[in-house]
């Protein structure tokens, strides 16, 4: 349970010295409770206070970092099981598994996926390279190095693929249960701080040393959830706590069960040794079945996959998957917003009719979609309305005649646009008169209350 602001306040020096950059100790305490300021920002906290707070504010799930520089990503750190309770902390990462025989073909396709969607860069963050049939979930604790296809030719191909992947400018997941081979791979990719996956009940000590030596996070797996728990505890005993749990490859059903049970044990039952991010490898769960992989990936975005590795990712798969992830990892208290500005639709130019709505992304998507369907050229004017829906923005004073007036003058719309008809949302019809006053020369028309009426309305309007 997170600490309340007042509990934190009681531990502050209560001097309002402002050394933390916040005007009062109370404001500081509230910001710490909210998570927007770190407790360390106060230089005057006593050691006892820091210790007390550190214990109480430690999340039930570790925040683990992989990658380096601008390609460093945080995983885990979650405090809730459902996003309506509080926002999820770390969005999941997507990875694509590169294999020696197909890397040449797959890599350029994967790299092509790189676009922006509502202020977020969408790309495959991780490249996964595995050694032999390696990994851990499917090894049943049988040790390493003696894998059927772990011959030296495979080793060379594996290292060659690691080299190619490392050169691609993405963070790597190196999966290898053979510490010797893993060391060679790490040598090739160490600067990018890859995730080393492959610790299991029989090799964990060796792997832990290796991860420690290269300063990388370690992926750990076992044939079942009990084995995972035991192996993690053993690793923790060695002081190795920079971990990611591989939920296994026995079957999709078991991987899903593990992902859920591990997350639930950590958050609901405070089982600290399961409080680590997860990794799920769909190429192992549904080899060569891109549709099933897409379906499973969608499930794991909602239910507790921190790293989701796929056998490949086409642009067509990326579009919905990244959109889904963007949705699920939004803060329920802070809606997604779009940039204020003029959005021409259906090839609208300066003489096209204008319509305005709020910058809440969902509203924007719905309205722009309907306007598009109407086929009528229209300039959609998006003003900053605090990211609220129309009625809420209006009630909060974020959408008003004055706010529109300010927006029009900031954007110079009276000069940029020739048309003088402005459609306003039906739900704020009450603003019509005021807007007429604040935007002289504009003909204010009230549009329908609901988006479903837009197509018909636009067609009639332009008829």
């Amino acid at each position: 349970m997170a600490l309340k602001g007042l509990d934190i306040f009681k531990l502050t020096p209560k001097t309002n010295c402002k050394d933390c950059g916040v005007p009062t100790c109370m404001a500081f305490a509230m910001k710490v409770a909210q998570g927007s300021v770190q407790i360390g920002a106060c230089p005057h906290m006593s050691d006892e206070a820091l210790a007390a707070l550190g214990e109480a504010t430690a999340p039930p799930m570790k925040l683990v970092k992989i990658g380096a520089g601008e390609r460093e990503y945080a995983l885990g750190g979650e405090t809730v099981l459902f996003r309506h309770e509080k926002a999820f902390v770390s969005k999941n990462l997507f990875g694509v598994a590169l294999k020696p025989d197909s890397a040449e073909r797959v890599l350029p396709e994967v790299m092509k996926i790189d676009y922006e969607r509502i202020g977020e860069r969408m790309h495959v963050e991780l490249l996964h390279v595995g050694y032999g049939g390696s990994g851990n979930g499917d090894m049943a604790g049988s040790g390493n190095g003696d894998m059927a296809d772990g011959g030296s030719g495979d080793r060379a191909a594996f290292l060659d693929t690691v080299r190619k992947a490392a050169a691609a400018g993405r963070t790597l997941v190196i999966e290898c249960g053979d510490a010797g081979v893993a060391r060679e791979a790490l040598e090739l990719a160490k600067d990018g701080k890859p995730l080393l996956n492959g610790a299991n009940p029989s090799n964990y000590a060796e792997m832990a040393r290796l991860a420690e030596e290269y300063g990388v996070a370690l992926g750990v797996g076992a044939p079942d959830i009990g084995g995972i728990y035991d192996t993690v505890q053993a690793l923790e005993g060695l002081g190795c706590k920079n971990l990611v749990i591989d939920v296994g490859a026995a079957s999709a059903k078991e991987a899903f069960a593990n992902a859920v049970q591990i997350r639930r044990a950590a958050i609901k039952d405070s089982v600290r040794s399961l409080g680590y991010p997860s990794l799920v490898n769909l190429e192992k769960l549904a080899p060569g079945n891109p549709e099933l992989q897409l379906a499973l990936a969608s499930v794991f975005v909602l239910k507790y996959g921190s790293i989701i590795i796929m056998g490949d990712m086409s642009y067509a798969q990326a579009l919905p998957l990244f959109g889904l992830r963007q949705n699920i990892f939004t803060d329920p208290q802070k809606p997604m917003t779009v940039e204020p500005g003029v959005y021409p639709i259906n090839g609208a130019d300066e003489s096209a009719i204008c319509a305005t709505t709020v910058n809440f992304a969902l509203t924007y998507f719905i309205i722009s979609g309907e306007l598009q369907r109407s086929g009528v050229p229209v300039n959609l004017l998006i003003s900053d309305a605090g990211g609220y829906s129309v009625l809420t923005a209006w009630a909060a004073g974020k959408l008003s005649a004055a706010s529109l007036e300010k927006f029009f003058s900031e954007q110079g719309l009276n000069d940029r646009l020739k048309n003088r008809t402005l459609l306003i949302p039906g739900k704020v019809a009450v603003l019509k008169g005021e807007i007429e006053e604040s935007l002289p020369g504009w003909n204010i028309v009230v549009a329908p209350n609901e988006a479903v009426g837009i197509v018909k309305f636009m067609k009639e309007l332009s008829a």
Partner: protein
Amino acid sequence: MKLLFDRVFDGAGEMLAMAEKEIAAATAELGEAAPISMPNTAYSLACHNAYLGKQIRNVSELARGFSEAKEWASGERRLGGAFNAGFATFMAAEAIEACKYARSPDPYGGEYHGHMSDAEVRELGVPLVTGDIPGFVVIIGSAPSDEEAVELIRGYQSRAIFVFLIGGIIGQARRQNLNMGFPVRVVAVGPDIWCAAHIISFVNRAAMIFGAVKPGDREAFDHYTFHRIRAFVNAFRPVPDIVVASGGGAIAMGFPVVTDDAADMWPVPKSLIIQQNTADFIETSLEARDIKIKVSKIDIPVAYSTAFEGEIVRRADMRADMDGSRSDCFELVVSKEAHEIEDHSIELIGPDIDEAEPGARTSIGFVCEVAGKAMQSDFEPVFERKFHNFINCVEGVMHTGQRDTIHIRVSKAAFDAGFRARHFGEVLYAKVKSEYESVVDKCAVKIYTVPEQLKELRAKATEIYNRRDERLGSLTDESVDVFYDCILCQSFSPAHVCIVTPERLGLCGAVSWLDAKATNELDANGPCQRVSKQRVVDENIGIWEDVNERVREASHGSLEQVTLYSIMVDPMTSCGCFECICGIEPFSNGVVIVNREHDGMTPLGMTFSEMASMTGGGVQTPGFMGHGKQFISSAKFMKAEGGPARIVWMPKALKETVGAKLNGTAARLYGIDDFVSMIADETVTEDAEALLEFLGGSGHPVLGMEPLL
């Protein structure tokens, strides 16, 4: 004079005798084994089936059923016996009709409708159950004239009431060329009173289909028909005993009978009503069966839509200007007894808009009279406050303000389209009736435009406003039995629940206890539900087990407990749409309050929006709480921590809004005069230390209070 019970039993006897004769004839003619059935039904003879729990399949079963029915009619000549005799009459009538159908599958050959198929039962049953058809009437006998017959039928049709005709009125309607049939909702059932069996069969099948009532469970049938089938009977004189007996059955089912026959008739309130003026049959009947007619359209010459809500009528465009700040204008809702109001009466008292010079300033007053069994005078101000929206949605009409500060303008365009003073009445009538359907049965509007009269009426209205304000002021949390919750904001703050009490309005400032109460009564499944307050845990900080249970349920488990009067212990949550937020200021042991409109800094080192971001979203944040402006002057404002005396800082504008009331509360609670002047604002300081200094200088009571932390 013959007693009513005697008339029922005699009438039942007549019907039974007739049935006995028919059954005997059928037995002789067709044989005992001859099949008995009604076409297109899976419910056999539905009346027999319903009352006896038996399927009648052949003539001999019909005869056995008849002897049972006969017993029903041999009971004591008292109320229960009379009801049974009524049901026996229906069974006998059904037997008579069944014999006809045993001889021919279509005994009426299209001249009369006779038996209704199951499909017709479903077709008519659905709108009856949903209320789309508000009810049905069975008209028996002949109206005084053919014209009156048709007028009555059309009157019901225009109110969407389904009409069944029996006897003479059918011929009257035909002579007037009235279009009849299922699609136009007027059905000529049959020439004789025993044809009523088809209607009762319909009702009983509806109960079995829509109410899942089991055959033989007569009580369940009575219950269903009384509560779900809004039917009634109009019987024209002369009303013979056999019709009286059928009427007894109808009354037992909950269907009142209205008749113009006063001879040997014994009125029974709400059940058997004598209305000698047949022109008033409709009104009398609807009232007796509690049928409300929905108002679906507003009869005005201009458009009506929320799209016109924000329209401004400029001086140059206006035809009429009624301004409460310059002349006597007002609007008022008053509740009355049902008999005092003629529904939909709209009266203009004084000159109309066209009698004044274009653009001239005139005055206007609206008195909206409402009546209804569930109406309460506490709803009056709730309706009244909506007049602004109601009138503003008229194209070309602008309305601002409320009570006696209204300002109304009518545009030239609206005037040219024919908009006149009475149309205000049409709008108010239609909106009040439709929006408050569940409590308003009748509504009439009076529109006053004579200045002298308005002066007088406005003074009277002011008295009413004052009385209401006093009532609101005298309501305390202790003086009421229930609180209300409000979950209007859950769409964007899913875990938040407001508990609204007389002394603590919703944190948005828009939902008072009376509003919540009205919302609840008007829409029992809506966002405001009653919260009992019987299991008190701690009255001082405001904990009730009932309240906690509701909070748990309405927050879907995310909140366990709230206190109503503390901001330190489990304070009420905030959704994000609060008018103000208060937060403790630890150095003075007081609280700082800041309203949404204030965008400057506070001595807490946080602005409104910073504080709001930490408090919203339905999360309990001890020491911080969102609330309405009016709550500041409430004696319950952080009562657990000492009340409003804890307030140390407020923006100047907020002080001006709530100052007078807050001073009053402080004088009453603490005997302090001019408390507001002891509270700092942004013109004094935005700094915690300077605040403390100021409080010392102003002699603020908080300095003598217990520490908050």
